[in-house]
């Protein structure tokens, strides 16, 4: 079975500072990895995904993530955050041969002016 751990439930950060949101997964098979963002009272929107190829993945809104197979991690980073980045962020994993996604419990990012 797959599982996803988001190590920080809340991350406060000052505007224009860098941020890293951590995600670790466990799986005995090859996986695809995803980061989603959720703004208040909305559905989830894809930030970026890793399916294959380069382990450094760039997404929307200046976010990027690096797939580290040996450490089973897929941490999300942004070099300089804006107020508008305040939201809930979810990491998810899916087996390469599967249809189901497994989500972490989310990290609430608050950007402080």
């Amino acid at each position, binding site marked *: 079975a797959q599982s996803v751990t988001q190590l920080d*439930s809340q991350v406060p950060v000052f505007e224009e500072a860098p941020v890293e949101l951590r995600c670790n997964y466990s799986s005995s098979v090859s996986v*695809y990895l*995803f980061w*989603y963002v959720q703004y208040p*009272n*909305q*559905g*989830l*929107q*894809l930030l970026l*995904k890793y*399916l294959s190829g380069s382990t450094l993945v760039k997404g929307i809104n200046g976010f990027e993530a690096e797939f580290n197979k040996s450490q089973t991690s897929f941490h999300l980073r942004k070099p300089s955050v804006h107020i508008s980045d305040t939201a809930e962020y*979810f990491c*998810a994993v*899916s087996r390469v041969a599967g*249809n*189901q*996604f497994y*989500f*972490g*419990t*989310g990290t609430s990012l608050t950007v402080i002016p």
Partner: protein
Amino acid sequence: DVKVTQSSRYLVKRTGEKVFLECVQDMDHENMFWYRQDPGLGLRLIYFSYDVKMKEKGDIPEGYSVSREKKERFSLILESASTNQTSMYLCASSFSTGANYEQYFGPGTRLTVT
């Protein structure tokens, strides 16, 4: 643009009522999913469907049923609503494979059962 629409953004129902939540997608996706989202618990899968008339139980199917009579539509049914089913319900859809493999989400339905 992929669109996943849900029939209601907000819904208030009474205990014991039968509740229908509808989800429609316009991208010819094979897979459709129903999740509930609660603070601190993330997204929990209720049911998913990988084809018309096919369904699979997720992690928390108790108290729910689903119906998929057409490829674009996936309905979640609460046979007899209870207060512990007050939650945000999210529908999603996806292809089974390929470069566009990801889940696309609807805006959510916030259900309150009183």
